[in-house]
């Protein structure tokens, strides 16, 4: 396996873990919160809300803007 393939595989594994966590949260049989619930909790505070929106804006800038 090349370095490229290994790198992409690890990204895919991280995404897979995220999907598993989200799936676990939706079964209702664990205490795992949904990602949306975590975001809502973070965004309940002033700086959390503004920080999350700043992160979102940064994503747009990073991929599309100067």
């Amino acid at each position, binding site marked *: 396996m090349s370095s490229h393939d290994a790198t992409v595989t690890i990204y895919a594994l991280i995404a897979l873990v995220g999907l598993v966590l989200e799936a676990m949260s939706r079964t209702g049989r664990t205490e795992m919160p949904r990602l949306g619930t975590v975001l809502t909790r973070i965004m309940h505070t002033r700086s959390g809300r503004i920080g999350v929106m700043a992160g979102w804006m*940064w994503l747009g800038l990073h991929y599309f803007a100067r």
Partner: protein
Amino acid sequence: MIDCNNGVVNTGAGRPDETGDETTRRSTLPNVDPVIVVLTLAGIFDGLAGNPVHAFLLIGIALLLVSGADLHVRPTTRMNGHHPLAALAVAVVFAVVVGGFERYSWPATVAVIVPGVAGLLMAFRAARTPGPEPLVVGRHGAVAWASLFVVLGLWELTNLLLQPDLATASYAHPTLSTLLDPILAMHTGRSVLLFVWLALGWHLVKR
């Protein structure tokens, strides 16, 4: 103790009824909002990486949080989904038109900054009137999600540092940006990802 509501808080000693250990800890550690620290560090490193616009915006937002500024945005249409079809149409048109702009061009930059700043202003406005207490997130769940994003960030950073230099992409050690480059090189790809970005912003604003 970190108070995420008010940015930087004074570092005064604890109340008389608190334990000695707690009082000592409070009197010696600065009480700094982690969001401000993250935004400031991100702004500094983005600036060092040659992205002055990003740095200006990130540090500017951090300074606004430090100052406790309350941006009085004139209440307009509430982002509660009353006009979903109109919003969808605007998002599609935006994505198609802006997706036609060259990446990293000034038109694309302005086009992204406008909804970005609008989302931020809505965040400032919404922060003035917090909604009902959200569901409690258990410690294990919070640690699990936080760990996932920390690992993602560290893996991204590892690949960034394995590049020949910060501005030169590596096929052997691609960052997420490098992996997305072929998609973002196409008008269609840019439009789809712009739409996803807008939808994510809309989703966040409504929370």
